[in-house]
């Protein structure tokens, strides 16, 4: 077997097949180890895919040996390999953190099943990214969504059930809309392959069926990516889910949805149709801005820190959508950059919050009082992640914001640029709230709190360092993002 040839499929099926394996093992530690090992293998595969794709161009892999459009195609281009890298890296890091955290938060006899569900969620996301077939997207979306609902419902708080149910209803509506959209495209073109769709759509683009299909597809994806005003499921889902699930979802799930949005509007429909013919660019611009500002404002008033950062995620999605709405190459580059950068900061922040939850049991603002002295490394991690969130150089947050502001100025939309800066100002406020409590609040002397275990600090600090490393050495991320953008906007993937 020639390994390099089969990398596209291995990235997905290794975690996927680990899920039933975890069920068969039915042993907490073994299941964790299987999950960890396979996610690192998958990560390694993603790294070599990135190298392979940037050296040789897109890879097409024919599943079952049938050539597209008859069979299903896996198509890895620069953007896909880049998002795969994010997803697998976050899974690999979160799983290191998971061992202690899951042991504490999940009942012993359910841990193996819990890891199985996690691997399904992970593999589902990877499958969405890797595939070049529109219906296959839906299938893997179902896998990852179902697994995610189950994972969220495992939160200790009873409200996790409610949050999970809300997400289930909203997510199912989103998935159904996506399916209707794919169905109408199939009806008009007779194909499900994305590139084939892109080729055949212009002919029939001026029909109501295609336009309605486009609307269904974008609204469905909008639900999945928590685009304002379809974001209501997200804060509770992130706040009440088990720590490791919040960390993984915050760093990956919405990123994959953004990726799907980019795929749909830029590859399948083409930039001229989506952002020119249809008024999607203005819509995304306005919704992105409102989402960014309103969610940041709400975040300022949150008492639970996990919810605070969940609202901040909605705001960050606003930045990414804004980048797409600007409809120029720099804007799209900034979105793609922010996919990676936001995964780094939110991954770090939610892992740190998980560490706090591990030691204290909850994450309300009151609990943070004086934590700066009791858990110095964890809190320093949160501060560093927060700085990156605000966008202070030399962090990665600065790089994304820089490109976003450049893109707005290119379009002569300086009011938008000002609003983006105002959004950063709001981020300063809510991060400061936390810093104030942690470093200037009086510690509660009745409790003794130790620093988080090394298995939590290690992934946290890897991410924190990455936040600043990629802020200084921008060649890799900016290089890949520009390559991806030019592939996306230059017709076809």
């Amino acid at each position, binding site marked *: 077997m020639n390994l390099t040839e089969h990398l596209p499929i291995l990235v997905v099926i290794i975690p996927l*097949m680990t*899920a039933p394996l975890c*069920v068969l093992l039915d042993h907490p530690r073994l299941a964790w180890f299987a999950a960890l090992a396979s996610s690192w293998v998958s990560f390694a595969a993603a790294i070599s895919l990135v190298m392979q794709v940037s050296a040789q161009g897109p890879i097409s892999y024919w599943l079952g040996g049938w050539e597209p459009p008859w069979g299903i195609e896996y198509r890895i281009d620069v953007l896909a390999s880049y998002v795969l890298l994010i997803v697998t890296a976050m899974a690999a890091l979160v799983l290191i953190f998971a061992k202690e955290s899951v042991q504490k938060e999940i009942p012993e006899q359910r841990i193996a099943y819990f890891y199985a569900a996690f691997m399904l969620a992970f593999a589902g996301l990877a499958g969405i990214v890797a595939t070049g077939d529109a219906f*296959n997207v839906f299938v893997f979306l179902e*896998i990852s969504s179902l*697994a995610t609902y189950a994972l969220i419902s495992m939160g200790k708080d009873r409200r996790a059930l409610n949050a999970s149910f809300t997400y289930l209803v909203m997510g199912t509506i989103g998935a159904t809309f996506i399916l209707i959209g794919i169905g109408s495209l199939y009806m008009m073109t007779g194909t*499900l392959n994305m590139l084939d769709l892109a080729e055949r759509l212009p002919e029939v683009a001026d029909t*109501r069926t295609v336009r309605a299909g486009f609307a269904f597809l974008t609204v469905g994806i909008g639900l999945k990516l928590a685009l304002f005003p379809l974001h209501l499921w997200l804060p509770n889902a992130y706040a009440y889910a088990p720590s490791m699930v919040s960390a993984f979802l915050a760093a990956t799930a919405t990123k994959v949805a953004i990726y799907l949005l980019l795929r749909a509007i830029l590859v399948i429909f083409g930039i001229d149709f989506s952002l020119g013919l249809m008024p999607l660019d203005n819509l995304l611009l306005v919704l992105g801005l409102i989402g960014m500002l309103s969610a940041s404002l709400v975040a300022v008033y949150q008492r639970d820190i996990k919810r605070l950062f969940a609202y901040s995620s909605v705001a960050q999605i606003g930045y990414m959508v804004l980048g797409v709405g600007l409809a120029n190459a720099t804007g799209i580059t900034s979105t793609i950059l922010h996919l990676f950068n936001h995964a780094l900061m939110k991954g770090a922040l939610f892992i740190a919050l998980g560490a706090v939850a591990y030691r204290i049991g909850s994450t309300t603002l009151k609990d943070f009082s004086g934590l700066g002295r009791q858990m110095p490394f964890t809190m320093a991690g949160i501060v560093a992640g927060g700085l990156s969130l605000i966008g202070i150089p030399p962090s990665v947050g600065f790089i994304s914001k820089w490109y976003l502001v450049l893109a707005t100025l290119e379009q002569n939309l300086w009011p938008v640029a000002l609003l983006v800066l105002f959004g950063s100002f709001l981020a300063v406020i809510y991060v400061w709230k936390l810093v104030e409590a942690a470093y200037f609040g009086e510690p509660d002397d009745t409790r003794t709190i130790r620093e988080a275990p090394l298995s939590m600090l290690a992934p946290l600090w890897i991410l924190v360092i990455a936040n600043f490393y990629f802020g200084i050495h921008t060649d890799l991320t900016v290089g890949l993002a520009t390559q991806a953008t030019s592939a996306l906007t230059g017709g076809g993937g």
Partner: protein
Amino acid sequence: MIAIAIIRLRDLFAIVILFGIYSFLTAVLFMDLDAVDVAFTEAAVGAGVTTVLMLSSLYLTSRWEAAPRHSSFLPLLVVIITGAVLVYSTLDAPLYGDPSAPVHQHVAPRYIQKGPTEVGMPNMVTAVLASYRGYDTFGETFVIFTAGLGVMLLLGVQKPHKPRPELNTIEDEIVLKVVVKLLIPLILLYGLYVQFHGDFGAGGGFQAGVIFATGFILYDLAFGEKEVRKVVPAHWLPRLAALGVLIYGGVGVISLLNNKPFLDYSALAHDPVHGQHLGVLLVELGVGITVFSVILLIFYVLANRRRQS
């Protein structure tokens, strides 16, 4: 009409039964559209098993729906807009049965013309499902597996317990018991037929798994759980479900080991068409096992809850 009745009613029991009728009507509609395989699935899953499962979960909660707290204006508006967009979108759609529609022009002709020779089976729906788009079916099997896993995570992993035969049994209904006894061998036999005859006629692993599980559930309902659990103990089911998807995936891994793309069945035998046959048979078996065990598992878990409450 039935859908409207479902929304208006507050009696959940009646709603579940109406859902069954609704599914059955949908199945008839699918038949009318010449989609036999889909109709089969809808009848077995929608009208059959889901009704039983919904009734089981109904047993756990209450029969009457609580009065809604929110105004239903916004959802209604969303539904009306969605419906309007759907109607709008069909205005330009090709007519039903129009042979020049894109659907019939592009990908489908090859499935119809070459399917029998390339994959070597008369039922082209099975050929498309299990071979041309076999990876989608692989994904769908994982969806089923995920659903089972989700139920296990939510409602609890089953601990071995002492079955209590007196519960769950219909003691005096002799007629019912005799009818069930007569029916079950037929149901199971039919399940096997559907499983292995999917290459030629309508059916396949999905439907077979459902039918097979229905047989077990029926027996459980009529005679109590003791006997059924002797045949299939509850703690086997998650493992069986995992085994099913592993069989499907295993076929793909064999293709990989032979340096063929994932799920390329021609790697399984020297003659490609022969390989296709074997591959489809194996993956359908995997699907059947997973579907069967997940459905029975959900039923067991619900029944277990019932006993605790």
